[in-house]
């Protein structure tokens, strides 16, 4: 006999992501899942952001990397509480990994924002809900201006796109407007920011938008 199942294949991850989101909502924490390719500048954007808003808002960070604690140590230098997840081979964070951190007395209460820096990868993180309220991606100019059309799902799933390393524009054959145009063609709701961690240009607008979310 036929039995209706009507379940997503990713049902287990979605269930745990929903649990995580309930914990976040109960604690009134706004959670961002920060994604991007390796070397895009996720940690640099994060550290610069933390230094600019840590006196205005309470923030926590969960770092995700295949191995090592390099990024968590950079975050720790800002004074913001951080936990490092090592996936030991998995190319993205999933809801279960975040749930495990939350169940180990992660200091969620009192936070305004939790930023989860995902494993560097332009493919899989877009597929997995970890319970966040918003996905934000970082794309650096050195990756070229063809990435939106090559990796549409990442751009579709993100609420904001940070175009990083703008200080290198004079040295590159990259069309920033093409990046914006193609990304917005995929996702009309996408908010875009162009900034440089080196010169700090563009951060004012990004910080204003970010702090306005809560």
């Amino acid at each position, binding site marked *: *006999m*036929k*039995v*209706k*199942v*009507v*379940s*997503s*294949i*990713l*049902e*287990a991850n979605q269930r745990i992501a929903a649990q995580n989101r309930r914990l976040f909502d109960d604690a009134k924490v706004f959670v961002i899942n920060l994604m991007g390719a390796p070397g895009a500048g996720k940690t640099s954007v994060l550290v610069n952001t933390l230094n600019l808003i840590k006196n205005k808002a309470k923030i926590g960070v969960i770092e995700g990397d295949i191995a090592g604690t390099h990024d968590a140590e950079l975050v720790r230098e800002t004074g913001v509480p951080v936990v490092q997840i090592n996936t030991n081979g998995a190319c993205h964070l999933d809801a279960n990994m975040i749930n495990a951190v939350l169940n180990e007395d992660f200091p969620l209460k009192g936070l305004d924002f939790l930023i989860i820096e995902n494993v560097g990868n332009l*493919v*899989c993180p877009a*597929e997995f809900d970890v319970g966040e309220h918003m996905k934000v991606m970082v794309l650096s100019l050195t990756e070229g201006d063809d990435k939106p*059309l090559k990796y*549409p*799902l990442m751009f*579709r799933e993100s609420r904001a796109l940070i175009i990083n390393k703008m200080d290198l524009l004079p040295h590159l054959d990259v069309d920033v407007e093409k990046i914006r145009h*193609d990304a917005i*063609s*995929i996702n*009309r709701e996408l908010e875009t920011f162009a900034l440089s961690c080196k010169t700090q240009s563009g951060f004012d607008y990004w910080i204003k938008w970010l702090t306005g979310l809560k």
Partner: protein
Amino acid sequence: MHEASLALSILDTVTRKCSEGGYQIVESIHLRIGRASGVLPEALLFAFNVLKADSIACSSKLIIEHVPVGGTCNCCGETFHTDEYYVIKCPWCGAAELSVTNGFEMDIVEMEVS
């Protein structure tokens, strides 16, 4: 995209449903997989056929229904569908103002049991 992990998820769900319903044998499992989901059906089938061995679904067949990428153009109002992985421009008017509503499915629809 992690088809072995997806195959294990399918087997977990099916095993749980069989336990809840008291079913002994799974004969087939019907999936709907969208073309834009990132799932490679051939890889999923391969992984499933290897991993099902010690489960209640050991003699089952995986039936994959492919869902094309589709939606509506917000410019000309026409609907579209394609077997391509993704659509950026309307095939009718060329505008990049699409509402893509189908093609991301990764669903277990039903199973045939006894």
